[in-house]
């Protein structure tokens, strides 16, 4: 039986090369990876009746992006496993996380916290979880929308995909990696300021 990637006509090597190339090939192969195992979503919908399809879809997107991040940071070794296998493992874990969140009546923000702290030891995850529980997280998570488009892209490249400053400089047309880092620093300051402003507005309303 042929693997999903063979059906799409792209091997793991091709996908990895495309993702590492950046620019349009990156977008193309990110999509190839996404579509390569889309059937996992349908399987998960049947497997987890407690979860809504939208939650499973979110989990799949997170899983695809997690695989991409592993490829970009050279953590993925194609000799050891297939991309589809890794994607399946991560996706299964994400679905279980979602299931825990739903059964424990946790908030949406807790899922996001789990995603960004999943590499930390469980003790540290619990520490952060209890620390954040005191805060009202509603609306704060959508502040990114208020940032300038260039800032959003820069933050995505650095903090979401984990590109190195030199790579970001090349992608976004900065002269050096340092100037790209400085620009990103200003953007992060702006983001933090927006979050603070949002908190002040919320407490003033109360």
């Amino acid at each position, binding site marked *: 039986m042929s693997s999903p990637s063979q059906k799409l006509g792209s091997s793991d090597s091709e996908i990895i090369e495309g993702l590492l190339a950046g620019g349009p090939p990156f*977008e193309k192969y*990110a*999509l190839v990876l*996404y*579509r390569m195992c889309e059937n996992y979503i349908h399987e998960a919908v049947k497997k987890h009746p407690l979860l809504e399809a939208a939650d499973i*879809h*979110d989990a799949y*997107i*997170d899983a*695809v*992006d997690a695989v991409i991040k592993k490829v970009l940071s050279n953590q993925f070794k194609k000799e050891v496993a297939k991309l589809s296998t890794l994607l399946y493992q991560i996706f299964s874990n994400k679905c279980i996380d979602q299931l825990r969140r739903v059964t424990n009546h946790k908030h949406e*923000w807790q899922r*996001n*916290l789990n*995603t*960004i*702290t999943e*590499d*930390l*030891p469980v003790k*540290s995850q619990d*520490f*952060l979880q209890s*620390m*954040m529980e005191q*805060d009202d*997280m509603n609306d*704060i*998570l*959508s*502040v*990114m*929308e208020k940032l300038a488009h260039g800032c*959003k892209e820069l*933050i*995505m490249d650095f*903090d*979401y995909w984990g590109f190195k400053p030199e790579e970001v400089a090349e992608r976004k047309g900065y002269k050096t990696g340092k100037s790209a880092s400085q620009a990103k620093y200003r953007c*992060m*300051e702006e*983001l*933090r300021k927006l*979050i*603070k402003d949002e908190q002040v507005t919320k407490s003033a309303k109360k």
Partner: protein
Amino acid sequence: MKPEYEAKISSYLDNKMNDQERQAFEEACQKDTALKEALKLELKARMAIQVYARKERQTFYEKTALFDQVEKKSQSVFLGKPFKMAASVLVICAIGYIVYQYAQPVSPQKTFEKQFRLYVVPTERGQLSDSINPVDSLWYAASLFYQKQEWERSERLLLHLKGQEGFMFNDVSQLMLANIALEQDQPKKALEILLQMERNNLTLGFDISWYLGLTYLKLEDKASAIEVLTPLIKKSKVYGQRAKDIIDQL
């Protein structure tokens, strides 16, 4: 955010601390409110990025998937059956053109242009095909020039026709010549033709009287004009009113 906080927080959240360092950092957070707030702020920022990223990626995957579908569909139409498509387009265009042509009201100008193309040009160039009777074609051409008020060309063809075998140089042709003479400001010539017609007792009596009246007016012979126009007032429906108006003015 203080730079020393920023470095510590990044190191903690990026899992770059060992167990001891991590524990020390967590204890410091309990004591140092500023550090704790800075950590919270950084976590919120990262969560905001995560939320935004997921939304962006979802939009990207969905939009691109949709675009792919549309593109695939259009490719199957345009590349899969190119000849069929081209033929269909040509047929639709042809039908459209025919419908458009027939839907257009036929203007006198168009009719003239068509007839001019068919008869006059070949006649003048001597390229008339055998299937077309030259006398008919010349008559057509003369009539068309007459309608277009190209008096000289119409007169030349009419005079040419006059001697042609198979052409009946009838009262209509003569009346046309008379009117052409009038239009060309040659009332004497017109008078000659019209009197000749009157003598031959041709069928177009009222027409002859009317043009005679106009000719006499051109020649400033008011009495004769009134004489020929007066009978028209009572007898001719076509020229009666116009004749009356002229006589009233005189």
